[in-house]
Structure formats: C-alpha cells, structure tokens
C-alpha cells in the first residue's frame, strides 16, 4: 500500500511538472501562420454534426467548403463537433462558446442544430449564423438557411438506375430513417418509376433514431446491400454516409453496381472499388458553405433561405468513370423537366 501511495505521488508530481511544460507550448501554437497566403479578419466557427470532419460524407463536404474558403480568403477558423446523443444545452453552449470567443459567422452543420441556433441567434443579434438542412428559422434576421433539393438529385440517379438495370430490380439504403433521408428515398423511387413504372425497388434503413450509427457503420451497409443483391437487385443507391463503403464492397463482391451520395464518391473510393460506383448523387454542401463564406468576406452576408436545387446545380449527379455517359442525354432531359416544373418530385415516400 505504501508503495502504491509513493508511486501515485511520484506519478502526480512528474505529471504536474510535465503539465507545466505543456502549458508554454499552447501559447506559441496560437499565433496565426504568416506567409503570403491571403488573410482576412473573418473568424469562422464551424459546428459539425455527429462524426465531424473525416466522416467521408456530409460533414466532410461542409469541411471541404470551409477549406476552400480558408485557401482563397484566408479566413480564420475553429471547428467543433457534436457528441452522439448530447443534450440540447451542449449544442447551445457550443454556439455560445463560439460567439463569446469572437467567431462570426458561425455555421451549424445539420438540422439537429435548428432549435439551438434559433435560441442562440436571438441572444447574439450581432453575430451571423448559417444552418444547413433546415429552413424553419427563415424569420430570424441573422440566420441564413442553406437547404438542398435532395429529392431532385435522387430522382436523376433513380432514373439512371432504372435505365441501367438489367434485372429490373434496384435498391435503396438509407442510413437513419429521418425525414431528411426519406427525401432521398422518395426522389429515387420517383425517378426509377418515371423510367420504368414496373421496376421493383427494395428499400431499407440501417438504424432508427436516436441510434445514428447507421451513418457510420460500413458492416451494416454491407449486410443490407448484400441482401438486396442476393434478392435480385443489380444497382443499389445508398444515402448512408460512412456506411456506404460497405455498400460498395458488397457490390464489388456481387459483381453489381452501386450509386454514391453527397460527394463524387468515385474520386474518394479505394481504386479497387471505383468500378462499381456507377454515379453519385451530388449534394454540394461544400458549394453552399463556400458561397456563404464568400458573401461574408464580401461584406454581403447572405440571409434568409438559399435553396440549392437542380436549377443552380446545388444537387446533381456525377459522371466520373464514364459508366453513364450513354444515358446523360436522357438524364439531362429529366433534369430540364424538373427545372421547368413539368415533373414535381415528391419529398416523402
């Protein structure tokens, strides 16, 4: 026992002295990097959803927009990410901490921030906020809502799936069953049926709220996709974030095809899997974040709702890999019909 105490005391003493050394380093690393890069006095606070930067999906797309703004305008940034299942006060406090530390604007990535942005924006009227995937705060003057027509982009990849499917059987895998992901499903089904009214569509979600692991579990994605391929599907579209990697693996093992989501996943996938990614539904969160920040740097901070749909190329489909080059004409015809309002894409399945 006495030895334990001694050891603990020694350890503590050692660590405390090391801690003191550590303290000096922080101040040094806080100084901004110099050089000839562009500089701006805009300090951007970025509040990510669960998963944060590096989720290979939605958050990463927002991060890409931020990175582009850093590169081009030299804005200063700080990032913070949500914990799974955290308290509402934690989200509010994240935004307040940014505001108190002088960050302006503050970008909230994901609809989960809607209530907290509404509350904190009222407390800090001089700070500008942006929220992605939510437009319930349209009346708050210092909040910009950046929303996407996911169903329109999904319609096009649904049409592509139906045009390319040989078995007349396609699949949809959603990460978590939320109204947002249901928009992807609804658009996909409508698009597939627009091409082939008799097409068979298998549809599933990996997890249910409040379990958001469906956005980051490749094993679940692989199992679900494998089931669909075994069941006769030859093309599966996933809107499941990080779980999509498993969908691509299943497609590769079954000799079938898959459709990516959010970013052009052909470019980020492992080279051995590129061949199965027929196309990707593009949801250009990076463009939204970049354009918002460009406005802020210009001094014309956007406000109100900005809708990124097919008309402004806020959503779309990718052609990397050349697998759908032969049907681009058909898809562009659909695209024009949607833009012209001739086709109204449903948002709920």
């Amino acid at each position, binding site marked *: 026992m006495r030895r334990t105490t001694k050891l603990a005391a020694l350890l503590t003493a050692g660590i405390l002295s090391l801690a003191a050394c550590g*303290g000096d380093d922080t101040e040094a690393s806080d100084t901004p990097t110099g050089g000839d890069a562009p500089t701006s006095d805009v300090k951007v606070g970025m509040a990510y959803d669960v998963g944060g930067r590096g989720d290979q999906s939605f958050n990463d797309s927002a991060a890409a927009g931020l990175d582009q703004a850093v590169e081009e305008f030299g804005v200063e940034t700080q990032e913070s990410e949500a914990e799974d299942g955290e308290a509402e006060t934690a989200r509010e406090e994240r935004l307040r901490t*940014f505001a108190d530390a002088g960050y302006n604007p503050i970008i909230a990535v994901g609809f989960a921030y809607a209530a907290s942005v509404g509350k904190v924006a009222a407390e800090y009227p001089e700070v500008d906020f942006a929220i992605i995937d939510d437009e319930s705060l349209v009346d708050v003057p210092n909040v910009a*809502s950046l929303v996407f027509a996911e169903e329109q982009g999904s319609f096009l990849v649904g049409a592509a799936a139906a045009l390319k499917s040989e078995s007349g059987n396609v699949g949809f895998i959603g990460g978590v069953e939320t109204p947002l992901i249901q928009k992807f499903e609804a658009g996909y089904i409508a698009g597939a049926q627009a091409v082939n009214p008799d097409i068979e569509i298998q549809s599933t979600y990996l997890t249910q709220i409040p379990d958001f692991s469906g956005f980051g579990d490749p094993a679940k994605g692989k199992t679900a996709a494998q089931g669909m391929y075994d069941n006769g599907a030859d093309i599966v579209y996933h809107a499941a974030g990080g779980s999509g990697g498993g969908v691509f693996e299943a497609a590769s093992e079954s000799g079938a095809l898959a459709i990516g989501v959010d970013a052009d996943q052909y470019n980020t996938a492992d080279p051995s899997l590129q061949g199965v990614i027929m196309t990707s539904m593009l949801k250009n969160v990076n463009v939204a974040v970049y354009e918002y920040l460009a406005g802020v740097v210009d001094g014309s901070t956007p406000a109100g709702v900005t809708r990124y749909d097919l008309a402004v190329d806020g959503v779309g489909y990718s052609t990397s890999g050349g697998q759908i080059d032969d049907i681009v004409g058909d898809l562009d015809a659909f695209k024009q019909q949607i833009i012209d309002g001739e086709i109204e894409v449903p948002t709920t399945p």
Partner: protein
Amino acid sequence: MSPRVTRLVLGLAAPLLALVAAFAITSLVLIIAGDPVGGVWSTILQVPAERNMANIINNATVLYLSGLAVAVGFRMNLFNIGVDGQYRVAAFTAAVVAGEAWLPGYLNTALAIVCAMAVGAAWAGIAGVLRATRGVSEVISTIMLNFIATGLVAYLLRKVAVREAGSNEIGTKEIPEGSRIPSIPFSDNPAISLYGFLVIAAFFGFLFWFVLNKTRFGFDLRATGQSTTAAVASGINVTRMTIGALLISGAIAGLVGLPILFGDAYAYGSTFQSGLGFAGIAIALLGRNNPVGIAVGALLFAFLDEQSNPLQIIIGVSPDIVAITQGVIVLTVVVSYEVVRRYGVRLEQRHVARALEQSDEPPAPTAGTGHDESKGVTA
C-alpha cells in the same frame, strides 16, 4: 488515532486518491496524444460562469435520476443496463400524454409523470419477470429490451410525429404551456434558470434513502443483494424482491427524461438526449449507490460534460478527452475504494494484534469485522 478519526480519514482518502489518480492518468493520455496538458486542465478546472453553472445543475438533475435508477438495482445485486431503453420509452409516453392534454394544467403534468413511471416500471418489469420465473440474466434481457425500445419508439414517433414547416426534425406535439413545470430562477438573467423538476429529483433521492434504510422492504432488498441464500433462510421472498426491485428501478428510470421534457424541450423528438442510462451506470458506481454520493457523481459528470465545448473551441483538443476522463474517474474510484478498504482492514488487524500482545487473553472473536458494509455492491 481514535477509530472514528481513522474511519473519517480513510473515508476521505478513497475519493481523493481516485481523483488524483484520474488526474494523473488523464494527463498521461494527454501527453501521449501530444495535447497541451496545462491548457486542458486550466480550461477544465476553471470556475464555470453563471450560465454554465445552471447548465451543470440541470444536466446533473437528469443524470442523478438515472444514477438512482441504476443504484436501486445495484443494491440488490441486479445490473439494470436497461435504464436507457426504459427512460426513452417512458419519456416518449409522457410526451404523448402531456402533448395530447386530456387533462387541464398540472393534472396533465401529474398524469404524464405517473404514466412515465408506469411505463418505465413495466419495461423493466419484463426483465424482472424473466429473471424471477425463467432465470434469464437481467443483464442480457435489459440490453435486448434497449434495442426493442429504440425500434418501438422510432416506429411510434413516426406515427404521431408532427413536423414544423421547413424543419427536418420530427417530434411529438408540444406540451401546452399550462402543463410545463416552471423553472427555478438562478440569477438576475431570467434566461438562466434551473429545472423545476430538480425538486422532484431531490425528493426521490430522499425517498431512495428512506425506503432502503428505514423500511422493512429496504432491509429485505439489501439483504437479498448481499446474500440470496441468507435472505431465503430468513424468509424473504426473493422472487417478489427481484421483480419489485426492477419495477422500482424502472419507475425511477421513467423519470430520467422528464426534467428535459417539462423544462426545456417540451416535446420528444429526433434530437432528444440519448445515452443517459449508460451514464447512470457510471454515476451509480461513482456515488457508491448512496443518494448523496450519486448527487456528487452526477454533478462531477455534468461539470466535465459542460467543459467539453470550450476544450474543443478554445484549446482545440478533441472532446473525447472528457469521455476518457469520466471513464478513468469511474475506474479509479472502484480501484481506490478497494485499496483503501484493504488498507483499513490491515490497519485494524494490526491494531487487534497489538492489543492481543499486550494482554495474554485468548483472541477476541471480533477481529476483522465491521467492514462488510463498505464492500457493498460495487459491480
């Protein structure tokens, strides 16, 4: 030193040793990760502002109820991992009942609370009945019931959900204003206040202590927890106690989400706080299943949670460090209580041995006793 002073010193030594060890281990993790140790500690240990203080107390209220729910089971050697599912099913039920507002004003609130407790108890009761009648381990059944609770609530939520225009969130109908529990003012700023449910949580803490320590039922429960065979021998109906303990645990679990529901969110939706049941397990361990200890543990966890945002934004350290600290604290508490207990036993043995040397009388039969209580139920 007189025995009483020794006991007091030993009692203080255990938590102190735990905190120091946790501090040391976390610092080590920080060093290995290459994070600024000094900056992290000075941020974590700074005195919270008024607003953060209110947040800490509010979140601690929620965690406290969760800790109590788990502790009831622990006192009877039952490991209720299902508090997580129980509170979600119950909070959803309360949100629907209160949102429908079949009764006016606070009658509606009371009905919702009773419904929540009943549903929480029923959900845990399934595990209780399985354990008592079929011998199914409550560890397994409550974990499984968590999954079922997730699926069930998600399904029912979609059935009853209302959705605000332009929002991607779904939730139950908002509780009418007359049925919300008024908050307790905490500072001059009216926006900073405490959950009114705090009073109810404190009352349940008192009830927990009273029932366990001052009633026949509480005695039976603790006796069963310490030795089932002895309990059976003294005429305690163990089957009834098992179901009873899980029902009570579930009923308290039913309260866990309610401070948030009636004090802040007013609806159960897709962003309702999850994972509270698992935090409750750690807090019950930390608080040694004692109502005051659980309060301290809940406050400590809420305090650490509150510091996670400044850590990320001001220091630029991953918030996971907070989770690591919490985990390390739980471990060190368990270990250090055991270390201190053994030290206490050895101290007493030495004391007795010395007493025996001085008098040549035959050994007293009391040596080494008086510590059974501190063993308690730790896992």
